[in-house]
């Protein structure tokens, strides 16, 4: 379970990115986080992987206050949370297979395990036949699916997707969405930050609307894109 308790984030004392956020997300939920640019969606996501720290308030993951997680344990926290971004963040010099394997290599996994897990996860995202392709040989949708494969390979409990369809056309956006859906059905919590109303309206699950660092609306079921 994810909990935000009165989380405020201020930059340089005059810009407030998050303003007293109170939020609870249960295990296995699919949450769409919507709002215009600068609403605080990305900052919220950064708090969860401890890329950024709150100015005040608490971020709690599985009953553990992230403020108590020492720096050297941050890598282990990040292995429990898969992240996907608008710009894919793939390594251009590595093939699809190597990009996914990289995530396991830096975690010190054995070569045999890596080979097995990578094949499996590439099959899940439908890229088994493109494993030897470099990112530049993949379409936008395929790149994002590859990024999802990399996020999945640690078998995380939570997937954070920050504008994953921002660079994709409608067809590819829906492919990515379907994939996130399936992942969620298998029990993983998915937090999708987006300002794509079609996507949000298609999902039709919990929708949290943010504006100027505050939660302005929290539709627990069958939510629609409303700011």
């Amino acid at each position, binding site marked *: 379970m994810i909990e935000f308790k009165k989380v405020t984030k201020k930059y340089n004392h005059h810009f407030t990115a998050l303003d007293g956020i109170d939020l609870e997300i249960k295990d296995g939920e699919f949450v769409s986080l919507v709002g215009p640019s600068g609403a605080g969606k990305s900052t919220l996501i950064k708090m969860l992987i401890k890329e950024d720290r709150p100015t005040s308030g608490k971020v709690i993951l599985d009953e553990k206050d992230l403020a108590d997680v020492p720096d050297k344990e941050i*890598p*282990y926290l*990040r292995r429990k949370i898969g992240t996907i971004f608008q710009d894919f963040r*793939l390594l251009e010099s590595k093939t699809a297979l190597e990009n996914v394997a990289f995530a396991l290599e*830096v*975690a010190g*996994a054995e070569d045999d*395990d890596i080979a097995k897990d990578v094949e499996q996860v590439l099959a899940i995202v439908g890229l088994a036949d493109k494993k030897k392709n470099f990112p530049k040989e993949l379409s936008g949708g395929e790149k994002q699916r590859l990024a999802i494969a990399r996020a999945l390979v640690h*078998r995380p409990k939570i997937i954070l997707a920050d504008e994953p369809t921002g660079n994709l056309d409608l067809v590819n956006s829906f492919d990515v969405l379907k994939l996130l859906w399936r992942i969620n059905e298998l029990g993983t919590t998915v937090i999708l930050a987006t300002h794509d109303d079609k996507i949000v309206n298609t999902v039709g699950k919990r929708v949290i609307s943010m504006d100027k660092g505050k939660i302005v609306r929290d539709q627990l079921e069958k939510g629609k894109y409303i700011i």
Partner: protein
Amino acid sequence: MVEISTKQSLKRIFRTGWINFQRNRFMSLGATGTMALALLVLSGLIVLNFFTGQTVGFLDEKVDVSVYFQNDAKEDQILKIRSDLEEFKNVKSVSYISQNQALEDFKNRHKDNQLIQDSIAELENNPLQASLSIKAVDPSQYASIAQFLENNSLKEVIDKISFYENEAAINRIQGISKSLSRGGLGVTLLLALVAVLVTFNTIRLTIYNKKQEIEIMKLVGATNWHVRGPFLVEGGLYGLFASLATLAVFYPATHFISGKLLSFAPNINLFQHFMGNFGQMFVIIVGSGLALGIFGSMIAIRRHLKI
């Protein structure tokens, strides 16, 4: 969950470091070259110290204070001075050369020169003086030995004391060696600083080139050491290759110089000495190289790799 292995991680850190080193070939060459230069000057300094030590040691053994006695000095007077000297703490040993012994030695030394032999035969009296050869515990104590003799009750039988020339030679060698060592140390430190700076800069550029990769590594949960490790390995590799290059130049050079030196310092065999101490030399040079390389990359990591 996949199994986590430290051995596997270390292997990957070393492999990535090695790949970085190879891919930056020209920059690596620059860093390695500068470091090799610093290490070469350092090994020159080691040779200089060894050479000075040997020469001074040799002179220490060879030179002594010689006390020459008046021709009318009696043997028991000389032997009294000898026993006085033997009790003096700064004296290592004293040997007595009588007038007859001195003449014998002189004859032996010039046995091939008929003219000298004939001249000696012509003489009625032995013109050579009896003497005492004194070895001091330390060459700097010669003055105190001379002082001791000056104050001796039998000093009127002493004709002259010769020691100043020997001391001057030792002082001069030690003086030259000291200033050479100081200069060498200065150059070594300067080059070491340049080597560290070049390494720092090379690693800094690698860090910039790999900015995206580092970001992704952190994103997928790479530990801090997994991110930093390869850069430390890269710096260490500069040091390792620089020291191997230094040793590859050092030994042939020592062999060459050794040949030249033998003609005027036959008892100093540089090459043999350093071959005999190869292990020690290897540890000093490789250790210094690794230290320089790793130190350079540590500064770059501290300043430019935020985790």
